[in-house]
């Protein structure tokens, strides 16, 4: 385990009653990496992200984010978070939403906010009320809110849901650019073609990490030609394992 890891979890467990949403995870993500959390609905991706940010308390295990033990309010100023469903103030404009979240994190850089708005291609709608926006536009606004305070670490929970293929490509090229500037990204998804674009993947199922590694490595390991097949291979293995 590297000492300069941006994010580290150690035997992380989260139980909701008898459901083990996160079941003994050991993750380590380095600086500037795009780490994909890939798994079906209900595999524990959202719970994991909420644990990482300190919104949930682990049942057991520990988390370190940017070198600090979670929960830690202060480090949240350097963390960007995008929820699965867009979480925006409906009666504020796009621009007002973005500026609000930037200021709550202690940053207010007008030029940067303009840049972020341009990035998600919302220049024409920046004065529109969120109420009037379609799902895709809201998703873009949400991303802009997560970026508005120049975070060092981005936790994106299914950021491309409801985004058209063209914009999805734009999102991903932007994620790559951010990573190149040293921002670390954790992106959850259940879409396999997105998984291809990550530096490293973690296949999640029933709160456990089935396998971890680059897309190429996971494919060659299983002798499959697509990630989808690779995932199914690991999933089948884990089922066998369960039965044994």
């Amino acid at each position, binding site marked *: 385990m590297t000492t300069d890891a941006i994010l580290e979890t150690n035997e992380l467990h989260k139980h909701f009653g008898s459901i083990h949403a996160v079941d003994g995870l050991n993750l380590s993500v380095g600086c500037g990496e795009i780490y994909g959390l890939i798994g079906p609905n209900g595999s524990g991706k959202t719970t994991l992200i909420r644990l990482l940010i300190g919104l949930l308390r682990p049942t057991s295990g520990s988390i370190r984010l940017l070198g600090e033990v979670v929960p830690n309010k202060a480090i949240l100023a350097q963390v960007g978070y995008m929820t699965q469903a867009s979480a925006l*103030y409906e009666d504020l404009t796009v621009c007002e939403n973005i500026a609000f979240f930037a200021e709550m994190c202690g940053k207010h850089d007008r030029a940067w906010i303009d840049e972020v708005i341009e990035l998600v291609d919302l220049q024409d709608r920046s004065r529109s009320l969120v109420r009037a926006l379609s799902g895709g536009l809201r998703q873009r606004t949400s991303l802009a809110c997560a970026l508005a305070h120049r975070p060092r670490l981005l936790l994106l929970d299914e950021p491309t849901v409801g985004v058209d293929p063209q914009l999805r490509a734009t999102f991903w090229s932007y994620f790559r650019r951010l990573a190149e500037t040293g921002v670390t990204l954790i992106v959850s998804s259940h879409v396999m073609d997105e998984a291809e674009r990550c530096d490293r993947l973690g296949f999640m199922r029933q709160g456990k990490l089935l396998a971890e590694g680059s897309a190429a490595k996971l494919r060659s390991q299983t002798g499959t030609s697509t990630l989808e097949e690779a995932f199914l291979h690991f999933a089948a293995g884990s089922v066998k394992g369960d039965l044994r």
Partner: protein
Amino acid sequence: MSSRRVLTLARRVMRQVLRDRRTAALLVFGPMLILTLGAILFRSKPAAIPLGVVNEDQGLTSPVMGAVVLGQRITDELAASDAFAVVALSRHEVDDRLRDGTVQGVIVFSEDFTAHFLENRQAVLDLRLEGSNPARSMAITARVTEAAMRTLASLAGTGFGVPGAPQVREGEAALPVSVQATYLFGGEEFDTIDFVAPVYIALLAMFFVFLLACVAFLRERSQGTMERLAATPATRVEIVLGYMLGLGLFALIQVAVILFFTVWVLEIHYLGSLGLLFLVIALLAVVGVNLGILASAFARNEFQVLQFLPLVIFPQILLGGTFWAVSDLPGYLQPFAYLMPLYYANRALRDVMLKGWGLVEIWPNLAILIGIAGVLIVMSALMMRREVA
């Protein structure tokens, strides 16, 4: 037109209402609670009004009846009625006792009261009233006049007092009793709206921010922004304070407009300091915001917010001393009144607006309001523990 579709739709609507059990229950029990409170209040007999009597009357000796002290007889008559709890006072205590509210009126019988009556055939009652509650003042005046009339009537035919009809001079009232009332606060020109207006202003301010805070917090949860807020460095206390400041400002603007309207357009009497008035309202707004945040935890939608009206707002109106004095409430309801923030605001505002009192006099009520606000801030911050670390 298909009756089947109509029935299907009706069934779905009913199913939804029944699924929201609390709404269904409150639709039935909420009105019952309010009506019960109302019935208790309307039927409750007002408590005996504490009435001071300064009796310096020397009386006179009549050949038939011996010594007669008219002041004493009226005092006895007053003491015998349920309406008053009579307290004997000396002249120098009068203003202090009226001021601190331990008596609400004082009758002063001067030493020549009986003599004066015999001479003029007219009893002139010197009544000193606290005066801030006009309805109360009128009740005291009427009851005291009645008691004096009964006393004089009981003396009729005894050779003392009124042998026949009282001498009626041109242009003078036929009644043998007249009341000369003086007021410590307010005066005859004060009416019920003067008494109710301060409370009405307080109530509006609190009610307004309560609803705003409750709905705003509810939205914060339902649209997911509370989760986003929790993922920023913002602490619970910062969030509560932000809401208080933001909404409290609107409450003050609202009050400023209402106050302007009531004082200059409706010509409500207004004596005290404007700054103090706004301080009380600001405290009440803080209370309202935090009550709203607390209540929002128990509501799933805006409709359910309305359900808090019978539980949070109406009891405050009914029990907080708005229309019924707390001392008139049945004993088992009085402790509830002391739990109502509105009760303390009512007292402070009336003291400021009707009596022109300052910080020195109203600070106990302010201190309690500050205490309640503090407790509520802590409670609403704790309530958010679930979502904001």
